[in-house]
């Protein structure tokens, strides 16, 4: 029978990870590998892809638009790197969210044919996205080192920022994976929603551009806190707002708990409609 979780336990989402750790790693590895299967350069794409994207952004925003981050940070390349730090966070989220909607349908075998810990699929999706984030971040740091001959020490705090983000991403996957089974239209809606979240977070512009009284709405975008913290630790060499991150962690874990419980409650219905 399926492993059961005490859903009343707020740590149950992480027990799902601990219990199926080997499986999660295996599935995530497989996921990463399969993306570039058959392509000539294979895994190199996950490194060159962000690098090439960065070049495109540098050309468009730097050369064509002469964009600057703010009054203090006038370098065009700096603008591109700051933007890139935010985009990476947004990509991690949208990649997981988009694929979550079809996750269960694509793994119909695991719903109907074997006793599979479906709840672990969420963690392996996060794991695969983490890998891509890691590679993209390395690309960012390489450019930063080449262009500015300097990488701030605060880079070491980046894993903490992402750790705070992870429960939220995993929760999103549980929620959308479950809804995606029953509401097939959700897949289309998610594409719009993820780009809306990206543009409404201070990724292409600093939050200071937003008048103070509206900023509170920007903080409702789940990407805002994480994107800003990433920009700080990866480029500005500043400490992230620990109070923001702390609050974010609490909300993020509560959300993951609720989404996990929802997933576990609704999974009984998967086999009826997949």
């Amino acid at each position: 029978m399926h492993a059961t979780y005490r859903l009343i336990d707020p740590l149950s989402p992480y027990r799902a990870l601990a219990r199926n750790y080997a499986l999660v790693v295996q599935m995530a590895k497989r996921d990463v590998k399969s993306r570039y299967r058959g392509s000539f350069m294979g895994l190199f794409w996950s490194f060159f892809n962000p690098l090439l994207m960065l070049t495109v952004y540098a050309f468009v925003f730097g050369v064509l638009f002469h964009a600057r981050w703010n009054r203090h940070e006038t370098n065009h390349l700096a603008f591109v790197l700051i933007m890139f730090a935010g985009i990476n966070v947004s990509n991690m989220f949208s990649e997981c969210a988009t694929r979550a909607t079809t996750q269960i349908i694509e793994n119909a075998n695991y719903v109907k044919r074997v006793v599979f810990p479906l709840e672990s699929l969420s963690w392996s999706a996060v794991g695969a996205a983490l890998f891509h984030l890691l590679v993209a971040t390395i690309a960012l740091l390489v450019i930063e080192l080449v262009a500015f001959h300097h990488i701030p020490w605060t880079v070491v705090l980046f894993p903490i920022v992402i750790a705070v983000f992870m429960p939220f991403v995993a929760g999103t996957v549980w929620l959308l994976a479950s809804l995606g089974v029953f509401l097939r239209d959700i897949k289309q809606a998610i594409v719009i929603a993820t780009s809306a979240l990206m543009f409404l977070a201070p990724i292409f512009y600093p939050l200071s551009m937003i008048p103070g009284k509206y900023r509170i709405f920007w903080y409702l975008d789940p990407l805002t806190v994480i994107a800003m913290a990433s920009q700080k630790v990866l480029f500005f060499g500043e400490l992230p707002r620990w109070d923001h991150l702390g609050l974010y962690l609490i909300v993020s874990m509560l959300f993951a708990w609720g989404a996990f419980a929802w997933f576990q409650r609704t999974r009984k219905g998967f086999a009826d409609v997949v």
Partner: protein
Amino acid sequence: MLYENGSIVVEGLSKRYEIYARPADRLKQMILPKVRRWMRRMEKAYFQEFWALHDVSFTVARGETVGIIGCNGSGKSTLLQMVCGTLYPTAGKVKTGGRIAALLELGAGFNPEFTGRENIHLSGLLYGITDAELRSRYQSIVEFADIGEFIEQPVKTYSSGMYVRLAFAIAAHVDADTLIVDEALSVGDVRFTQKCMRFLREFQKHGTLLFVSHDPGAVLNLCDRAIWLDKGRMLADGPAREVVEQYLAEQHAADRATLGEQVVVQNSLFKDESINAGATHLPDMGVPKDVIDPRQEILNGCAKRNLIEVFEFDDTRIGKEFGAGAIRIRGVRMCVPGGKAIRMTSAGEAVDLEIDANVLEAIEAPIFGFYVKDRLGQRLFGDNTYFSYHDKPLKLSRGTGLRARFRFRMPILPVGDYSVDVAVATGTQDSHTQQHWVRDALVFQASDSTMRHGLVGIPMHAIEIERIAP
């Protein structure tokens, strides 16, 4: 663990499939009825229901082998899926102990994009086998599957045979306490099927086996016990042989019913009939001289001969007959050719199997036939009168008596109990209505056999060793 590893307890198990017009209705069903109840309004169902399984209960002890038979749609797979835990019961409980390995349908649980190797790895993880353990078994799994280079190819490129080979190979290597096999063997080739059967026989010695098949022969061959499901209900649970025979009789009745003929399967068939007409005389067929085993004389003289003891036809065998009833079998005998009924014979001797019957309604072209079955109910050999008479069909009026005679040499049989089913039907070889089928009409016992392997021995015309050029 509360339950002994390998045991299965099924209590009042029911499964209602909820058929939803749209996936979103499934979500509504999960939420809205509760809301409506809370608002004190009428509950409303968002699905059409279909009961695939209805109140099924049984217990399987560790080490038992149970066959599950039934036609398509009888709920076999649904039952197995609930035992495995991939389906949630609507009502009732399933309790299992220990590790269950399942071969449900084709390619159960494989990820089609993954290679065979990756799927082996993944399945191992699902069965809770440690990495180190899996690595040590990997070679053995690959050898068992025997699909060559394909092990490195995505599973979606596999033929159905390769799928099953891989699935079976994995299931065979996970140290399961319970193995569930659902019709999976039918797509493998002969060599692989035999390999699987050898594995299953070995597995039976210590593990619990649930075996589903449309092939009654395979069920008889493997199982001591059988469960018969029909339209989601359990019709019978008992010794495999009895259950399978009941099932086959019922199947025949159902087949003929679609053709508008009524075949009755019940205990009290022909209870008060008593027509006694003289037997029509069949020509003496003579005793064939050509197929006498050269060892016959020696064997007959020593204690090694294969003695066969025949028990009498018991015409009160209630519950072991069925048929449409236009002819009734009234007696079955084993005789010396052209002579008296015998109680004892031995392998290699010619015997007559005589079947007497009374015609109760005018019919044409009766076909008499028989099967000799072993202890498990597997049919060893048999024959019928169809080809001997198909160009000169007998027209028979009500009240005629008939005697059919089959003369053959008794083959060599391994020590054990045997029985003979006799039947009379009308129609043709391919499409016929059983008028009267008597199960186990004769039983006999073979003892002191020289034969050890195989199901039936045939007389050898010559046995010699010759020197030839090396």
